[in-house]
């Protein structure tokens, strides 16, 4: 097998194209190709020398995938222990959309096995080893082959120019948030919520290896294993692995991002999946629905009780910084002919210091509108504050004419 010692200028010139391709895949909002994903899932179980899964669920979001996988494992346990009489019992407990989706898929896939008395024991704990076996077969082995056959300087070049570029846009901004929301919303600690791996959000890994394969023409048997993993990245959003049960999640239907690539949604969820699951985020800060959809419900009390400094800042912005100053009994710390300087102390965060100035041109009704500009918290006089807003020292700022 050929070792890769050096990148050619032509290969280096291909970096941006790989980044672009895989960021697009990582942030794709196309519907999943479940058939293709299922085929890859079956191949991966095979190459890990595992029994084929009894049930492969197709779910609408990573949330229902994790929850559904957990439920399916327990349903299978019940079914094979007590046979079909449990069906009605379980069904009576089944109320939510997730549960009924899981139930109908699990039942239709195992019904014949139950009827024909194929009673295998499903005794596995939810925290099964499947995900780690998948990890070792299709991930760490590929990685160790890369280490042995690709010179470290080449690796670090591709790492920094391809892998981490994709990662900063897909994993750091989107996957990490989706993951933490799934984790916090799936109720049970032992639900195996963390048994997930692969799908579009692993884009940086696929970018890295596929660059070595397709651009550097790296050859290795292990790439056969990688191919199945890559196909999951190309076909679906998320995969939850377990003995007997594998769950494939669809891709998001919508991903909203701000100019810095952070999850962001004005008047809507920042990320939303086809089954309706998703969450609200303002410039990368995950917040409750009301903060985005009904910000008029934010109160001074709510802001002051908020313990997370980032969420508090979002709430203050939505409430209006100037309104917050007024309504929260901020202190006027200075006043001169340039305006009034206000300060509000915020726990565990920088103080909010704003200068209140009068508009120089009157409104049609003759009133002068006041407005507030946030300034450096170290500023102590109104003149200094207004000068600062134009990048000046007080002695450099004294307009003869203002309107």
């Amino acid at each position, binding site marked *: 097998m050929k070792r890769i010692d050096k990148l050619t200028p032509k290969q280096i010139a291909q970096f941006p194209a790989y980044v672009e391709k895989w960021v697009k895949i990582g942030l794709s909002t196309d519907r999943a190709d479940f058939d293709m994903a299922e085929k890859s899932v079956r191949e991966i179980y095979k190459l890990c020398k595992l029994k084929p899964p009894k049930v492969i669920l197709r779910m609408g979001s990573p949330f229902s995938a994790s929850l559904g996988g957990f439920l399916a494992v327990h349903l299978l346990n019940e079914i094979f222990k007590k046979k079909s009489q449990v069906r009605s019992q379980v069904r009576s407990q089944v109320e939510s959309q997730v549960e009924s989706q899981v139930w109908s898929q699990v039942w239709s896939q195992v019904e014949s096995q139950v009827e024909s008395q194929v009673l295998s024991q499903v005794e596995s704990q939810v925290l099964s080893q499947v995900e780690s076996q998948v990890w070792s077969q299709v991930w760490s082995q590929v990685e160790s082959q890369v280490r042995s056959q690709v010179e470290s300087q080449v690796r670090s070049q591709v790492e920094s120019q391809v892998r981490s570029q994709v990662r900063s846009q897909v994993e750091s901004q989107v996957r990490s948030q989706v993951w933490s929301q799934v984790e916090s919303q799936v109720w049970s600690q032992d639900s195996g919520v963390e048994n997930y791996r692969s799908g579009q959000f692993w884009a940086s890994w696929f970018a890295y290896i596929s660059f070595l394969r397709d651009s550097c023409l790296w050859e290795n048997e292990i790439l056969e294993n990688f191919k199945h993993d890559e196909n999951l990245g190309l076909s679906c959003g998320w995969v939850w692995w377990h003995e007997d049960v594998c769950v494939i999640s669809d891709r998001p239907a919508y991903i909203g991002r701000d100019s810095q690539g952070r999850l962001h949604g004005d008047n809507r969820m920042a990320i939303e999946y086809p089954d309706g699951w998703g969450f609200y985020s303002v410039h990368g800060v995950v917040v409750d629905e009301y903060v985005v959809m009904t910000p008029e419900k934010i109160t001074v009390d709510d802001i002051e009780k908020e313990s997370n400094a980032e969420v508090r800042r979002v709430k203050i912005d939505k409430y209006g910084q100037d309104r917050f100053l007024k309504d929260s009994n901020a202190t006027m710390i200075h006043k001169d002919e340039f305006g009034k300087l206000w300060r509000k102390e915020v726990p565990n965060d*920088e103080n909010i210091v704003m200068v209140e100035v009068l*508009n*120089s*041109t009157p409104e049609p009704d003759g009133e002068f509108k006041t407005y507030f*500009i946030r300034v450096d*918290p170290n500023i102590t006089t109104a003149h200094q504050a207004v000068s600062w*807003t*134009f*990048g000046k020292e007080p002695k450099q700022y004294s307009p003869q004419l203002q*309107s």
Partner: protein
Amino acid sequence: MKQFRQGDVLIERIEALPGNLKDYKRDNGRIILAYGEVTGHAHAIDEETAKSFVNEAGELFIEVDEPAEIVHEEHATIPLPTGVYRITHQREYTPQEIRRVAD
């Protein structure tokens, strides 16, 4: 020191134009000093004789050989005597990072 302010734009007279300037393009025949973010209103100079330049940092400079005016939909007009001016936009403080206090 000669300074004028129209809303969030500071117009400051300077001795001479600095070096390394490029022409700053007019928009529909007007020199736009600043666009309103949501209103579509603008701080603008309409006189054809006024010249506008921009440096690498994006700072605007105006050269007025014949008296001109800065107009805006919501602010009174500012008359601009002949001379060379630097335009500065008002900025607002945004905290870059949140420093947490250790427990």
